[in-house]
């Protein structure tokens, strides 16, 4: 996982509530037992005309040249609700997104983001809206700067918005840690728990 520090990038406002993971990547786009090859399927139902082809739907915001090379997505509340498919996050990362800003996230999606170096930022709805309003004026000029160390979202003409992030999540994103490796360092604690648990909940054990 690539460590995350500071980025300055074009942002796309996809201002809808309840953008579900079926919309982020339809199941039909998950053709292989693989975490890659998914970027093309990102938002396929909206990005392309028809239902299976690749003819560009020029009305969808991702296809608007004004937003080319965007790395930040702004959206409405409950972004990434629905299916647990991590493919939604893999597709966003492969497409080039590094940050998503929304008032709230689906909880499984949020954790999937952290595990894949995609920074989910929670800001108040009114702040996301005012950022979006500012961005649409001139998306290539009005780029957002995300500073993970300071936990701020800012732009040349906008004040810095502070966002909350759990220290352990921040740490993982900054260092690019593989969280499984980190937990494997705690094997002694896990074994100690299991020993005690054999006494507390023997009925729960399968051996």
């Amino acid at each position, binding site marked *: 996982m690539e460590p995350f520090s500071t980025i300055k990038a074009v942002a796309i406002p996809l201002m809808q509530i*309840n953008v579900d993971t079926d919309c982020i990547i*339809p199941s039909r786009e998950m053709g292989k037992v693989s975490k890659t090859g998914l970027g093309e399927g990102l938002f396929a139902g909206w990005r392309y005309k028809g239902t299976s082809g690749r003819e560009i739907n020029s009305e969808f915001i991702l296809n608007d040249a004004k937003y080319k090379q965007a790395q930040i997505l702004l959206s409405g509340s409950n972004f990434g609700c629905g299916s647990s498919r991590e493919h939604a996050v893999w597709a966003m990362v492969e497409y080039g997104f590094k940050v998503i800003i929304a008032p709230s996230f689906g909880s499984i999606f949020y*954790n999937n983001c952290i595990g894949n170096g995609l920074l989910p930022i929670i800001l108040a709805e009114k702040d996301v809206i005012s950022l979006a309003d500012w961005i649409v004026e001139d998306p290539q000029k009005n780029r957002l700067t995300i500073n993970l160390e300071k936990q701020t979202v800012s732009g040349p003409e906008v004040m810095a918005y502070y966002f909350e992030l759990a220290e352990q999540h921040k740490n993982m994103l900054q260092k690019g840690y593989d969280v499984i490796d980190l937990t494997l360092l705690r094997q002694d604690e896990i074994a100690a728990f299991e020993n005690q648990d054999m006494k507390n909940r023997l009925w729960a054990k399968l051996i």
Partner: protein
Amino acid sequence: MVHLTLFEKLWNAHVVADLGEGAALLYIDRIFLHERTGSIALKGLVEKKRVIRHPESVFCTIDHIVDTLPGRTDDTLVEGGKAFIQTTRASARAAGITFYDIGDARQGIVHVISPEQAIVLPGLTLVCPDSHTCTQGAFGALAWGVGSTEVEHAMSTNTLRVKKPKTMGVSFNGTLMAGVTAKDMILHLIAAYTAAGASGYAVEFYGDAVADLTMEARMTLCNMAVEFGAFTGIIAPDDKVIDYIKGRPYAPKGENWQRALEYWQNLKSDKKALFDKKITIEASAIKPMITWGTNPGQAIAIDGQVPFPAQIRDDHQRAAAEKALAYMDIAPGTYLTELTIGGAFIGSCTNSRLPDLRKAGKILKGRKVAKGVRAICVPGSSQIKRQAEAEGLDKIFIEAGFEWRESGCSMCFYAGGESFGFEERVVTSTNRNFESRQGPRTRSHLASPETVAVSAIMGRIASLSDLNEEVGNGTL
């Protein structure tokens, strides 16, 4: 004395280490996989040369993209589906985990077979790379959906790093009206409080109307906690849970059964425990519900009118309603019972269990599906299918004009294989009415299996009372 909620008791019993800021390393007792997302997790472990800490705690089924047509094999109507099935089978065998293959008498939808085998038990933690894992909270277990990477973490360490959600108590007081189901309860709740209403919360369901539900109906209720935005849904275990579990394959035996009973007695929220948020719903006010839009919160009583977006005050909800009505091809103010349908589906981890099939069968007996309606029933597990056939339910469904399938997730979602067709209107007992969820631009209306059965017969969205009026009796 500290007064704890059921959620807090389950949480506290599984804390391996405190990670600060309300997060913990939680012990995971059981892990379930399926071929759609589990295959990738198993492959990920092999690539990183990691071992499964307790293979006996890991179970895997084939349900998501396997065909449900009779005589099925590894070949699938979903392009590339065979690779998912065969990769899963090979990895599961190599990993030494318990695997329910195609043709195994125990095969079925993960959240249906886990309780059937008593793999889920009160007081356990269980995760699966599937958002509807919350279904199993009906047994008083802490069960929730995770991603593929997180389930790799769980398999490698039998733990997960989890940020503690807040707690919400949802009480359904009083008694449901006849013909109102658990599906209507959860749709009523989500419609009233939105699809993000429980975002950041673990929800406990309780109250007389919850206690009155069968285990199968409780599973329906908890199944859609995730559609309410919740981390998970749980119900405190009672005698119904104990009766359900006793004697099943993975139920504790002998002395361990006694130990378990003793432990489970304490699995309830203390009387003085405080939830971070509480919602109370009068069960008697709930009517049969159906969705009109593209998220499960966009639902109304079946005899009601869809909203006029102009009257919705919240800008985002109004924009979402306008977009949804356009997608669903429904004019504002329409009575849904005016809409003709092309598809009817009974199945999924929400509503595919034996009581669901019995209730639908009672409606379908001696009646025919309307012309122009493709109707499909997919039992939730191979065991349910056999039980239903032993009762003759298959014949009732088939004679009515339903397809009777092998168990699996089937057309709850479209993966490129079967679908109800472009822009087809479907009444479905499933859990998600998202855009194109059941097929290319398919228009899905979520409802109870009873409503699906009646609508299939009437050829339009309809409730039991419509059918009773039609046949001139009120006996159903």
